[in-house]
């Protein structure tokens, strides 16, 4: 491999990782933007999403890497899997909001955040106690198509992950910026009381944010499974933490910021592994985060939501 190939390959690696972090970061950002709440349950909604996806693909008879689909069947299976996963995690997110978080939403202090930590423990352990801690082999129906660009390899799954992430993020941007509900969401983020007085159903907006954010996390879980061909009960924490870092880095509450933040963290991880050592990746990521926040306390792109405290 030449240096150029190497850089290209690590770019491909980093962008793919970043796309996944970005999807997760969007969920954090949506909820944070509106509620100023660090939603720790998001970590494990992502994990649950990957398990729902695993079961869905399993139901299609896809086990391990033995069945490869192409064309319409592949598109159909993926579409169904995405729908099922996103609806399931979306409903899970809404349930958490409706039955638990809504009751602590107006409490000053970390009560809501602690609740999400509790929910996170519950989700993790329900999965852990029912399926065990082992890594599960995730089906991969994608054909092993790849393109050689010099010494670098670009696989179909990478192209797919970029397209899906791009489409979902584009859809989200459209939703937030152009639709009625999206505008209501932004208004609520700015000032929930004023929004309420303007006739916006704040409860509905918040539920929508949870649904959309959790559904994106579910999609992230499916993409994660397709990309890495495994899942386990413990995948939520590291991915979630880095995604959250990405959201803060980009400027929390800021949708494009979360995407760029995700990409930056992905690229740091790839280049850190190449240039320094993966052992120090987290140190590098968090050091950069601290530096960014010290010099730009509202993230690289500024926060969209005002600080309500």
């Amino acid at each position, binding site marked *: *491999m030449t240096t150029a*190939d*190497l850089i290209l*390959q*690590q770019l491909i*690696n*980093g962008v*793919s*990782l970043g796309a996944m972090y970005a999807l997760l970061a969007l969920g954090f950002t949506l909820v944070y933007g509106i509620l100023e709440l660090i939603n720790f349950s998001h970590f494990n909604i992502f994990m649950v999403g990957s398990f729902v996806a695993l079961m869905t693909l399993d139901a299609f008879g896809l086990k*391990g*890497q033995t069945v490869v689909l192409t064309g319409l069947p592949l598109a159909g299976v993926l579409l169904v899997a995405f729908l099922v996963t996103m609806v399931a995690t979306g409903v899970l997110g809404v349930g958490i909001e409706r039955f638990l978080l809504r009751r602590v939403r107006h409490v000053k202090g970390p009560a809501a955040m602690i609740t999400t930590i509790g929910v996170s*423990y519950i989700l993790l352990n329900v999965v*852990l106690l029912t399926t*065990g*801690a*082992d*890594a*599960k*082999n995730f089906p991969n129906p994608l054909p092993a198509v790849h393109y050689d660009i010099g010494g670098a*390899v670009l*696989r179909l799954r990478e192209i797919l992950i970029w397209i899906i992430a791009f489409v979902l993020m584009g859809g989200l941007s459209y939703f937030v910026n152009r639709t009625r509900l999206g505008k209501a969401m932004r208004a609520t983020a700015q000032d929930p009381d004023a929004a309420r007085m303007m006739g916006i159903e704040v409860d509905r907006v918040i539920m929508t944010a949870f649904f959309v954010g959790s559904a994106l996390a579910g999609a992230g879980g499916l993409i*994660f499974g397709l990309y*890495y*061909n*495994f899942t*386990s009960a*413990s*995948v939520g*924490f*590291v*991915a979630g933490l880095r995604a959250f870092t990405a959201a803060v880095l980009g400027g929390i509450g800021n949708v494009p910021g979360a995407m760029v933040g995700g990409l930056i963290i992905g690229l740091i*991880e*790839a*280049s*850190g*592994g*190449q240039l320094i*050592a*993966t*052992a120090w*990746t*987290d140190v590098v990521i968090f050091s950069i985060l601290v530096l960014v926040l010290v010099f730009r306390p509202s993230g690289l792109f500024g926060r969209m939501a005002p600080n309500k405290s």
Partner: protein
Amino acid sequence: MTVKLTRRSALMATAATAAAATLGVSGAEAADKVVKIALEMSFTGADATSALRAAQGAMMAIDEANESKAVKGVKFEYVKFDDGTATAGQYDPVQGATNARKMVSDRDIVASVGPQMSGVGKAMAPILSQGNLATITPASTNPDITDPKFAAQYRPAGKAIYFRTVATDAFQGPNMANFMADKLKVKSIFVLDDSGAYGVGLADAFQAQAEKKGIKILGRDRLDPKAADYSAILTKIKSLGADAMYYGGVGQAGVKLAKQSYEIIPNVIKAGGDGMFGSDLLTGVGFPAVEGWYATQASPHVVDDPKLGNWTKKYTEKYKMGPDDYTVTSYDAALIIIDAVKRLVAAGKPVTRDNVRDNIQSSKVSTLQGEVEFDEHGDLKNKVISVFQIKQDKTKPLDDPSSQYKYVGVAPTV
């Protein structure tokens, strides 16, 4: 209330000890004496499943002993101790130390199987030594605990109490380095570990010997077992043009590493220790990604021994899951304790901790991994390292290690 209850159990314990003495002298036909074996594992958190597998290995041996009345007049019971805590989210040496004290306090417990993790072992060993309670670890391989250099800390009371049915990292790694240099003709290698005590120790020992054998170490890095993506480091290995990659660690990171290295560096020789031997790898990674990996076992390979195959079948039927490497070592550990008690009863000696320890020390037991004997520090006398390579055998169950791992040979000793 708690105080009262414990008082009573202490009384009962005294009575039991007295009964044991009587039993030893007269061999009376009284009700079976209960002998407790502690199972000290990380049942909570990240290692829960492998803990369960290991514990079930020991439980199976105990159940079998009870069913076959292996020791006349003795009923074995197991007591589970969990060193995983919600505080640590995984194994927790702090809780290990507490458990060791609890074990010492329960006079019915004569020996223990565990712990899994060397970190826990280091916290437990001094306490067990003071309490003169022997433990046999099926999984912790850090050499420090049985190293005479640290005897003052880990066995302050003098005698060895920390036995192992696994070889320490001090042999497995270096022998495999010899094998890769001599047999596989590896010239350059990249070494990885999984941040855990076992993985780091194994990779360190491997790397040191590999350097001596003239293999060029292209780099050394550490995987975060909770992270998902190892493509950055694998791409780096690819760009360095390594002949081989050695991974010290267990399945948690191993599964992901195997999957991704199949995609990124399919033609590089890949090897690991006994942490890469087991059905969790076969099912978690799946074929074809897992094909070709080398793994080692710290025991001599018994060619075409149907014993292991039958045992695997029995285990799988009983617990509805496949065994892994530490199920075997844990089963063996329980066998050794049962054997020690058996010899005591046969010799008419009381079943005390002290006597059980002495008998474990002098064990010569035929187990799944062959005949086991301990040296004076508690390590296996037998230091044969067997090398296996994964080659798919479609005629056999794909999650059965004994048919999917092909025996390659013995790794040359240092």
